């Protein structure tokens, strides 16, 4: 593969899509198993605030998105431990608070011209060579971290009590997972957009569920299904001149629908 290939924006977008799907698949499985879909959404909604703050601070936008999303998750943990409001209420509160504050901050920054469409729906032209380095370097680190906390995180997902009683570092695993989720959202935003990022996490995982009888297999399948969705979505985006995020998500949903048509292994027994 020649370096010249990377000059083509479309090749860069394809590589980014596959790289993001490879990590979003396994992380998305935990999002589904832990019933945290709304949590991913809340983190994504804070992206605007993250981008604005990053511009003010003069750092990379992705860094701002990551920091704000992670901070939001920690605030949520703090509020949850008080236990007087349900988690979905807290998430709705944080999600819309961060979106509103983000829009206000941006409105003050008249000098700043944020490509709102690109931020919300993804931009196929936006992936730079540097982004590829971040996606693949960060993705490898993220997968290694996920593998390292896999057992305590899975045990905590099944039963936090069991994990703690049998001496697994469940709190640390949870923290690592939360940071990984924030990281995936931060790097995936360019390609998929803030509004649709949760779909990239949960749709491939939901598609993989019927085909897997083991958590590791499901995580791997979700990564593969996400990669196929990213590739076909990006080709669709190029062919029909549609925004990249919605095209990828639409492709993922088509794969999900197709997987529902395949009869489940046990379905034949019923009736």
């Amino acid at each position, binding site marked *: 593969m020649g370096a010249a290939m990377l000059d083509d924006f479309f090749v860069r977008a394809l590589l980014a899509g596959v790289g993001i799907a490879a990590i979003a698949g396994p992380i998305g499985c935990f999002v589904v*198993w832990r019933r945290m879909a709304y949590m991913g959404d809340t983190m994504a909604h804070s992206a605007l605030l993250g981008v604005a703050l990053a511009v003010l601070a003069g750092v990379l936008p992705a860094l701002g998105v990551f920091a704000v999303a992670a901070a939001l998750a920690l605030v949520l943990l703090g509020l949850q431990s008080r236990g007087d409001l349900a988690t979905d209420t807290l998430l709705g509160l944080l999600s819309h608070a961060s979106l509103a504050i983000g829009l206000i901050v941006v409105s003050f920054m008249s000098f700043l011209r944020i490509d709102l469409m690109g931020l919300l729906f993804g931009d196929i032209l936006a992936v730079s060579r540097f982004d590829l380095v971040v996606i693949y370097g960060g993705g490898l680190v993220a997968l290694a971290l996920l593998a390292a906390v896999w057992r305590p995180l899975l045990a905590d997902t*099944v*039963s*936090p009590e*069991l994990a703690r009683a*049998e001496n697994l570092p469940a709190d640390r695993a949870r923290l690592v997972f939360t940071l990984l989720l924030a990281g995936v959202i931060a790097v995936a935003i360019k390609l998929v957009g803030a509004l649709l990022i949760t779909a990239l996490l949960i749709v491939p995982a939901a598609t993989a569920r019927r085909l897997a*009888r083991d958590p590791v297999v499901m995580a791997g399948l979700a990564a593969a299904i996400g990669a196929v969705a990213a590739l076909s979505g990006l080709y669709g985006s190029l062919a029909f001149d549609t925004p990249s995020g919605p095209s990828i998500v639409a492709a993922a949903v088509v794969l999900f629908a197709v997987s529902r048509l395949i009869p489940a292994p046990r379905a034949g027994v019923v009736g």
Partner: protein
Amino acid sequence: MTVAALSPSDRLFAAETRAAPGPAQALVSAEAIGLRRHGRWLARDVSLTVHRGEILSLIGPNGAGKSTVARMLAGVVRPSTGRIERARGLSIGYVPQKLSIDPTLPLTVRGLFRLTGRLGPREITAALDRVSAAHLIDMPAQTLSGGEFQRVLLARAIARSPDLLILDEPVTGVDIGGEETLYRLIAATRDRLDCGVLLISHDLHVVMAQTDQVLCLNGHVCCSGTPTQVARSAPFRALFGQRGDGVVALYQHHHDHAHDADGAIVPLPPDRAAKQHDGGGDAG
């Protein structure tokens, strides 16, 4: 007890116990522990010690704080007051009162066994065999019946060869014959591993016969003692004959107080005081 069958940490403990004969090693020791949540005490001023080779039954009505005490001892929650001391390197096998697995998580019984630690296929099969559940090994955990799931959870906790088993109502949903089998298994496991067992039950009058110590809890420790070995007496057979010889025993309460509807401690009315001392006469 065969030393070869034990994990390295067990062997360490076994060596220690043998080197120093005398009172059995204290595995976990709680001193005046309590847990306060949202301005309410879920359990308060509970002191207890589980020794190696000992079975302690924690009984009490619903909402008495039994699970809270178990969760504190297991290290799941930190007590708001009091102190807990655990033996160094203590390994715990835990059966929580409630465990539900999300249907989106593909987890077989085999996967459940490997959830918190490495276990070889032979250890898993042997553990499942003990609860007659070997045929369930490849089943998705969510498809098991309540009784099957409870048996699998107990087998899973035992397969870890822990120093301490904490079993929160492990026979819930298991039929009477199965209950006996599980009690026999718990006793046999205690003998085989020389582990301590903390067994929680909401049955106020009947406990496992091999229980060394009974603690009756209702927010605090109401009374404690040893079960009465009356399994062979005629009245016992009349009441509990179908529950099998020598598997369960009666526990006589020695309360010097009563609780009002809100759980507050009130002195015993004089006529009830006599009845309470008669113990489990009205059981059944």
